[in-house]
């Protein structure tokens, strides 16, 4: 998992079902400070598509969405 940015924290929601990956990520994002980077690891396809949209709507920046393996994704979020 090569990364150009070093995440402040990592949230592993692999295995979680709809909509917990999104809900847990949103909760985590709200607790973090401006400028910090959250790395989210997930394996639920719908959340991998929906999460970047909903997080951007919250005003945060999506640095990266990448497929890291079969049915697994990694999303990097920069807190506003």
């Amino acid at each position: 998992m090569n990364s150009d940015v070093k995440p402040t924290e990592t949230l592993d929601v692999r295995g979680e079902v709809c909509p917990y990956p999104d809900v847990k990520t949103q909760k985590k994002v709200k607790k973090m400070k401006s400028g910090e980077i959250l790395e989210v690891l997930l394996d639920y396809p719908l959340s991998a598509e929906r999460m970047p949209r909903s997080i951007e709507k919250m005003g945060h920046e999506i640095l990266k969405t990448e497929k890291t393996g079969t049915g697994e994704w990694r999303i990097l979020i920069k807190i506003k």
Partner: protein
Amino acid sequence: MTDASLMLAGLVIGIIFGFVLQRGRFCMNSAFRDIILMKEYTLLKAVAMAIVVQMIGFHIMATMGYIQLSPKTLYWGAMIVGGFIFGIGMVLAAGCASGTTYRVGEGMMGSFVALLGFMIGGLVTKGGALKDLTSYLQPTEGALKAITTDNAGPYVGNANLTLANIFGLNPWILVVIIAVVILAVLVWKRGSEETKAEGTLYEKIFKTGWNWWITGIIVGIIGIIAFYTFQNYALGISGGWFGFLDALLTGKLPRLGSGMLNWFTFLVIGVVIGAAVAAVIAGEFKFRAPDAKRLLQQFVGGVLMGIGAVIGTACNIGHILSGVPQLALSSILGGIFIVLGCWVAAYIMFMRG
């Protein structure tokens, strides 16, 4: 159609349906829940598009004499109670009947557990310990009995109420008005939430999730083909799974001569196969499971969906996807309470505090 070809047709349509459900992430639990939870409307737009396509398609086929509309019986108490229980259940199960079924094909074991609960809850309510509740809410006499009409109007093959025949209107008047309104809203609200699809056509079809309008149109077309093929009704999920477990338990295997069981059971098995094929090609198939607490939650949700689907006479597919386009009052009422149950459960589980 012969029974064998009907079975095969059910399987083939199921495989295509499952493929599309997986590619489009077509789940009504997400569609309705995300309205209040995330202000996300992408899947809702897909559902609305599918309803419009089918509403027009069903009425064209009925006008040309290829099918007769078959709105479900309006047991108003059963639609309210069953729909509400189903709506709560699908939030706990993390997927509606179709969402749970296609996710089994993606390798999600939580949805597999929910599906087991769904089949058990369904059979328990149909002919088991809770069957008295079903007959109480679907009685032949009294205040809760079925409300029917003596004048079902054109294209309708039974005595059940629709939004058209209750007012003595030609269904086409409503079909045109509803279609224009929904399409206008969809065009007005298009785009802003679309998936950014890049890459070749192959990648757009097999690798990335589909745009909502493509999913909606194709789901709608599948529903039209299903109605034309099966004749009695369009797509449904719950009947197929209940029939499947029933056949396993009683030994009365789906066989030639019982077209209903054949068609719906082969359809749902096809959905799992089609979703698995789509997930494997997209590199999204993975055996995965949540923790024990979540598995139990999904099982309970599945049981509630089974209870609700039997009491309310259909799941989200039978009511919202197949019944609402026929303008069936039963399905409109059942659908409203499925959505209300979903919202109440989502609020309690995710939005308090």
